[in-house]
């Protein structure tokens, strides 16, 4: 089979696209992992597993472990989701921009 010039170019584009995709997926995986670690630490960690040592510390009238279990973890959850939404939008924009750069 003889390769036309257009085929070579298309293959290069596919390679380029695959590389961009792989880079994007790695970024998303890293972001998710980081956020899920925080998710676990504030709820299961601070709220349950480490609650006794944290309860030695006071936050006003709250024992700190109790506060994480009944208030703090929920606030952190909200922050995590909005941070995730913002970073994902940025990553997707960068992905598109790299794609446009490659086509020119």
């Amino acid at each position, binding site marked *: 089979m003889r390769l036309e010039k257009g085929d070579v170019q298309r293959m290069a584009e596919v390679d380029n696209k695959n590389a961009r995709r792989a880079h994007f997926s790695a970024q998303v995986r890293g972001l998710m992992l980081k956020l899920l670690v925080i998710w676990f630490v504030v*709820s299961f960690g601070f709220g349950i*597993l480490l609650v006794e040592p944290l309860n030695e510390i006071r936050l006003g*009238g709250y024992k700190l472990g109790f506060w994480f*279990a009944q208030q703090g973890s929920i606030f952190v959850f909200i922050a*995590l989701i909005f941070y*995730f939404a913002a970073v994902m939008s940025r990553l997707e924009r960068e992905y598109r921009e790299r794609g446009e750069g490659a086509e020119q």
Partner: protein
Amino acid sequence: MSLTVLTYLVVGFTFALYIGIAIATRASSTKDFYVADGGVHPVANGMATAADWMSAASFISMAGLIALSYNGYGGSVFLMGWTGGYVLLALLIAPYLRKYGKYTVPDFIGERYYSDTARVVAVICLILCSVTYVIGQMKGVGVAFSRFLETDYETGLGIGMLIVFFYAVLGGMKGITYTQIAQYVVLITAYTIPAIFISLQLTGNPLPQLGLGSTLAGTDMYLLDKLDLILVDLGFQEYTTTLRGSTLNMVAFTASLMIGTAGLPHVIIRFFTVPSVAAARRSAGWALVFIAILYTTAPAIAAMARLNIVDTMQASDGQALLIEDKPAWFENWEQTGLLKVEDLNGDGRIEYTADPETNELTKLDNDILVLANPEIAQLPNWVIALVAAGGLAAALSTAAGLLLAISSAISHDLLKSTYMPSISERAELRASRIAMAVAVLGAGYLGLNPPGFAAGTVALAFGLAASSLFPALLMGIFARGVSREGAVAGMLAGISVTLLYVFQHKGIMFIPGTSFMGDMSPNWFFGIEPNAFGVVGAAVNFGVAFFVSRVTAAPPSEVQELLDFLHEPGDAT
């Protein structure tokens, strides 16, 4: 104006509002009916999701569960579990299913696992968890009516069914979405106003979230320290530190509620209604904001109302309350049977202690905490009327969302996708309306004749969703190698293990005394209680699915293409 008349006015006004919205938002296509034409603003969807999500259990029962049954800190499992699930939903599930772009959860499972069997198994799991959930809502409607509007339970349930029937059958997802937004406003107002007043009275701080960590007004004693002190005095355990079961049980309980939340179909389908993948992510954040307003207020209501009750029971002279000094709210709620006293030692006083031998406050129902809260705090009658409307809004909005999940599974997944693929768009829309009507009537029937298993319903729904649908969705999105056979075997194994553990404790179909493995000590599996078992069922599901996938043929190339598409950045162009 008497309280009953006022309550009729407030509840009547909210119902007129829901019906008005229903007429304005009629569905004209199947896309309207299933996903509100995919055009709902992310903030609006967040608000609708919050109402969809917060049921009669969240509104009426949760604060009481935390304060009484779970003695404070132990109740944290509900607070973290029912909110933390949104992080999983926002990161791992909702954006990908929105990207997929179809109408139902079984739709995705059927296509990803290239199998009608997988789709039908998903429909069965969906119906099992949604029906158990909806029975609780119908009961909530009947109870709220009978308590506040002095109708009997059946009449109340009938009126509730009529309202849901009207806007759900007419408007489908579109009508449900906009009524849920109105219902959110009603329920959150009704929940926070009494909380603000009570926080002000006790601590001088209007924000309950801050009041809970403040000193009691006019003293330098922290509210939570006072509560710990009094409860220990009465023989109870400390409010702020007492575990529910064991640390392991609390971890399992929280995890089960989290993954159950992320696997409940009626919540997931709400994210199909927004215009884009990015909107689905943001919308999950907004949903949690609106949910958190109630969920961070609930622990404050829990502690403050518990303190108020304990204070009422201890008259100023440090002795137990004299029977003739009972406040008016006490007698009102005794009539409903939620509160009972018995002067066991005949000294004319009501002793409230942790010891069942001497405790004379023989019944203190969890629900009383929220329902009687305005009376305990001596708030005006319109606040009480508002709480009635709020409880009804919470129950109706969740019931409608559940009924839509059930009816779309029947008309779309069973009829259109599996058994009658040639059905036209118009016929499918008609079928979905009929399915909705049947679902409403079925739920009403089950509300009137609650089966034995209705007692444990809401917790069971989470266990079922956690052990069947959540793992199938997560593996469907992220594990390319999981095959049709693996997914079906996993779902069936996960849901069976969970059901067996629950039935072993509570009897088959919750009929007492029908445990099939004979008498075993309760919570025998590492001290994990049945309501916390969903996470174990999920682990079984994952394990079985991966094992079976290894020994069966790999998924075909179309599945790889579907996954490539799901993980492609941004929206389809």
